[in-house]
Every structure is written in C-alpha cells, then in structure tokens.
C-alpha cells in the first residue's frame, strides 16, 4: 500500500508531531502566507525569480524541521507533468521550460509546506465557515481514512501472502475487485458503527475543533510573515533587475 496512503500518513505525522516556529504559528497566518506565495508563484514569469524562490522555500522547509528530500520527491509528481508541457516549449525558448517546471515544483512545495505544518482538521475548519456540512465531511473523511488504511493494509498483506496477486491477469483483477469490494463493505460497517457511537454522544451533523482560526496574531507568526517577505523581496529585486536590463 504505497504512495497516496503513505503520503497522507507522513504529512499528518509531520503536521501533528513536529515542533518548529512554523508549527507554532497561527493557522490563519500559515494559510495566508501559503495563499500569497502561491499567488506570487503562479503569476511570476521570471526564471531567475522562480529558482531563487525555490531555494527560499527549501530553506524555510528546513527551518520547519521537515525532511527536504521527502517533500521534494512529492513535488516531483506535478513536476513530471509540467515537464511534458515544458518539452514542447523548448523549440521556442530555453527559459520557458524552466519557468513552467519551477512554477509547478514551487506551487507543490508551498502546499506541502502548508499541509506539513498545519494539521488537516485545522484547515478543514476553514471549510466550515461557508458550510458546516463541507467542513464536517472533510473532517470525517480524514478520520475515516486513518481507520480504513490500517484495516486495508493488513488485509492487503494477507491477500498477497495467500497468493491473491500471483495468478493470471484475470485472477488478479478478480481478486483485487473482491478485495476492494470487501474494503468497501467493511469500511461502511466501520463508519456505521462510528455513526451509532456519534449518535449516542448527541451528534447532529457538526464536529468542532477548538483550535479555531480566530487566533490572535503575535510573535509566533514571525515565520510565515518572514516567508512572505522573503518571496516578495525576490520578486521586487527581479522586477528591478528586469527594468534595469530593459533600460540599459
């Protein structure tokens, strides 16, 4: 059981169990800084600025005690798809592909930086602002994911050990489908049990998180602010540099 499940598991671990100045910042400041930097990344068209931004992001990732190589490996997934687009740009310019690839990597790294320092429930409480239902479903999805992934991992191992993936393609697909069918049924039974337990505790459609977004800004928010300022500084410098080149 690889990739997506492992990724979510690790991200959750980094967000909940690590301790750094970024982790201590308020949810709102982390989120706002990610949105601002993401916006800057998407609208920047300077290769030099994007490369410099990449290095700044890596620096802040390291400062947040996150594993750079792991986050970079996750960012390679969108980078791969960006590179397909970038390949077609090569005949026109050598700079365009760099811009395309670094936009994709930087945007992915910013999101990963946010989500590895902010537990999912804190982010889902944003969804609760426009709609309690959405926030609720997002949170339940997160909770169920961890319940199901443990059950599924064990059963998948058992299926492999019993030769479930050893036969012909037809056998493999049939066994996988039955496995997924069983995952489907046991997952629903688990969530029904959970619903029964929730009802006995008075559940009426809403789950609250006491670490809400209404946190006061303070000293703890220096890190996200510094992050934004560094990125902005790069963009300002690159703009002046461009203007200077044009002038000269």
């Amino acid at each position, binding site marked *: 059981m690889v990739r997506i499940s492992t990724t979510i598991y690790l991200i959750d671990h980094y967000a909940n169990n690590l301790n750094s100045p970024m982790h201590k910042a308020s949810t709102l400041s982390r989120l706002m800084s990610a949105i601002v930097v993401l916006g800057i990344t998407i609208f920047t068209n300077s290769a030099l600025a994007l490369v410099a931004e990449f290095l700044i992001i890596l620096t802040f990732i390291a400062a947040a005690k996150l594993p750079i190589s792991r986050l970079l490996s996750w960012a390679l997934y969108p980078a791969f798809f960006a590179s397909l687009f970038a390949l077609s740009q090569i005949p026109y310019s050598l700079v365009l592909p760099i811009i395309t690839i670094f936009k994709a990597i930087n945007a992915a790294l910013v999101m990963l930086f946010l989500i590895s320092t902010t537990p999912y429930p804190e982010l889902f409480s944003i969804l609760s602002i426009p709609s309690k239902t959405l926030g609720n479903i997002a949170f339940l999805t997160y909770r169920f994911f961890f*319940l199901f992934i443990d059950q599924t991992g064990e059963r998948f191992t058992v299926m492999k050990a019993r030769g479930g993936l050893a036969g012909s393609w037809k056998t493999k697909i049939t066994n996988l489908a039955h496995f997924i069918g069983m995952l489907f049924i046991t997952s629903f039974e688990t969530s029904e*049990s959970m619903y029964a337990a*929730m009802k*006995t505790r008075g559940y009426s459609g809403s789950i*609250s998180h006491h670490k809400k977004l209404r946190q006061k800004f303070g000293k703890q928010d220096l890190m996200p602010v510094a992050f934004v300022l560094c990125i902005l500084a790069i963009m300002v410098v690159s703009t002046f540099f461009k203007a200077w080149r044009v002038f000269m």
Partner: protein
Amino acid sequence: MREIVKVNCIKHRYADATEVSVCGLSFVIHEGERVAILGANGSGKTTMLLHILGILEPTEGEITVFGEPPTKSSLHGKVAMVFQNVDEQIIGPTVWDDIAFSPLNYGHKPDEVKNMVDEMIRELEIQHLTNRVPHYLSGGEKKKVAIAGAVVTHPKLLILDEALTGLDTRSQMETIELLNRLNKKRGMAIAITTHESRIIPRVADVVYVISEGGIIFRGTPLELFQKPEVFRKAGLEPSPLIELLKTLKNQGFEVEVSDDLEEAKRQILKLCKIDSS
C-alpha cells in the same frame, strides 16, 4: 434502589434476517449498581446493550430505560457507552475536542464545556494527552479517552461493551480502578459485558449470564462462582482457581469459592495451617 433499566424477553431481527433474542430471567439495573454481563461470543450481549441505548428496537418484548422506552432523545446525557472498538468511537481531532464532543452536541455553552472537559481530564489524569491526535494514542490511552468522552456529561448509566478486552493486565486494572472511582464518586451505574470471569469480582455487584438467547443466571459474583455448571452452560470455562476451590469444597474443606486470588491464597494457607501474614 430505583430501577433504571428493565429488559423483558426482547427479540430483534436484523436486516439479513438473523434473529437474536434475550429471554429467560429479566435484566435489571438499579441506580448506582455495578452489573457484569457474562456470555460467550454471539450470545446476544451487545444486541441487548444496543437496545438499551435505543440504537436498535425490539421486534418483540419490553424494554424500559429510566421508566420509558429508550429513544435517543430521551436518553441524551443519561446513558453513555464505551464500545468494544474505541477507534470507532473517538471522533474529535484532538483528545480535548473528543471529550468536548458530547457537551457541545447537547447544547452546553463554550465556557461550561471548557470547565467540564478540563475537570474530566484532571479526574482521569490524562493532562499529557490533551492536545494529542487520537490515532497516535496507544490502546490503553484510547480507552481512557473514550471513557472520558462518555462520562463527561455525568450520565446516570455507563455501559461498556467488552471494554477491557485487548488491554494488558496493567491497563485493565487501571481502567477497573477508574470505573470503580467514578461509580463511588458519582453514583453512576455501570454495566459491563465480558467473557472473562476473573475480573467480575472487581467490577460487579451483580452478574448476569447469557446463554443461547436467554439469561440463565442472576446473582452476586460469589453466588456465580459456587455454580461452575452455569459457566459451562454459557459456553465459558470457569477459571482454574474456581475449579480448585470448588473441588476442595466438595471434598469437605471449609472454603468459599471465589475468583479472587488473594482470598483464595488466604483460605488455602489457612487450610494448610500456615499463617499467611
């Protein structure tokens, strides 16, 4: 003592046409009483508890909880349950949020909720778990959190479905101590299902034994231990200690059959005329 739960021969038919019945003797829980429900797997223990909670409705039979047929709204705050698989019960993003889940749902104000939850955390001595994420806790820690979440609203009855199964001995003892403390301090009735006879003397004033769709025994733990045949009929094995003391008693020795090891040691040493102190 006031009766708070009474169950008379209930039958339930599940969606897949399986029928479960719990008949025989009546099942009664009094205020402040500690009740153990002993029975083999599939005997109907959990089904009966789900009826008491109002989650299932009987197709036949009579059940009253606090004088009324149980529906979820009438039981709000009065009855709480700790399920066998606590993973399915813990819902909050953090331990604090999970304990706050019920009070918030029942309409308590935020300040009240904070006081209730903080008091609960202090009482259960789980301050170190307050901001932890539930899926990273150990089995024993999750059990404590589940109990905290269940009793935070000071229910009159706490039901535990095989809640001690799967815990190591130390965690089991800690949980039992906690339950007894809550029972003494709050007068909260406790009903616990189990198939382990050795914990019964520690957690129960009254024991019910369920077998093949019927309640076949109602009495004190001591009365139960005098009847190993009841265990066998229920598909359970009496503990070796019970068997030993029963054999000694049948041989004419002056012993009382009990599953309490310390008491058994004292009696056997007395028989051997050895001063156990």
